[in-house]
């Protein structure tokens, strides 16, 4: 009792991003969400319809707000390549995309379409910030594949100075740290 009925949707979706990336889709129960989001169970169902409805809202928020905010300046040429890569690999949204693709991609057309759009956005932004010569031998979309791969490895080496931690996929004149 005493919790406010109204809630900030953006704050709820941001918190839900963290809960889903920590527990995965199947592994996150409604109990986890009710507790972590500090919402009444009834409000959660009324606002989003189901756990799946909340997950879709979280993914859309990730694309339209979080990723767009990082990517838009890169497409208009206002972000250096190294800065963009750094922001992208640090974004919790990348973890969300991994969870969405692995767990829901094969059986959930709506989730799959959103993840594909996100990867396309990432590819276009990284290409715009750091163009590479076209190379027929490279996998496509090359930059998105690299970034997701790096993020996957980083999840295995949480210590930032671990010797086997992967390096960020910047090339050209920028120095690796």
């Amino acid at each position, binding site marked *: 009792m005493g919790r406010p009925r109204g809630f900030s949707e953006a704050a709820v979706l941001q918190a839900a991003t963290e809960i889903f990336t920590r527990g995965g889709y199947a592994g996150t129960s*409604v109990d986890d969400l009710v507790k972590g989001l500090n919402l009444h*169970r*009834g409000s959660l*169902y*009324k606002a989003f*319809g*189901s756990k*799946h409805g909340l997950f879709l809202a979280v993914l859309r928020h990730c694309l339209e707000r979080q990723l767009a905010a990082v990517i838009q300046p890169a497409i208009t040429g206002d972000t250096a390549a190294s800065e963009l890569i750094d922001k992208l690999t640090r974004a919790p949204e990348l973890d969300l995309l991994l969870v969405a693709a692995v767990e829901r991609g094969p059986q*959930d057309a*709506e989730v799959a379409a959103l993840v594909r759009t996100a990867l396309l956005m990432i590819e276009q932004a990284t290409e715009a910030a750091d163009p590479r010569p076209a190379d027929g031998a490279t996998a496509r979309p090359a930059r998105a594949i690299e970034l997701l791969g790096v993020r996957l490895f980083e999840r295995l080496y949480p210590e930032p100075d671990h010797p086997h931690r992967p390096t960020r996929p910047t090339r050209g004149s920028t120095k690796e740290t």
Partner: protein
Amino acid sequence: MAIVSIDGSNLTVVLQGLDKLWALKSRLTIPLAHVRGATADPGIVREPKGWRSPGAHIPGLIVAGTFRQDGQKVFWDVHDRDKAVVIELRDDEYQRLVLEVEDPRAVVELIESALTQR
């Protein structure tokens, strides 16, 4: 226990055995357009349920029938909380249905895929 199926453009819920008596209903037919989603949710059984009207509520044993809370009607039919599925509705007599089904994961997939195809 309830059997949930999709019949054309409707969601059909058929109550089994004695639940028909406790709930005072044997069958619910809900247009798919009124269905917002489905979620397996064992934890919901611990939540306050509001006023029973009509139906049977023997705490810890039987929750069946229509409950009213905060001006909303929720239909319950659950004995085994591990098999509870929540079906959220819109523009319907009920705000949501909380049903015990044999295979919660299969029922959730059935409903979610029917909604995606619409």
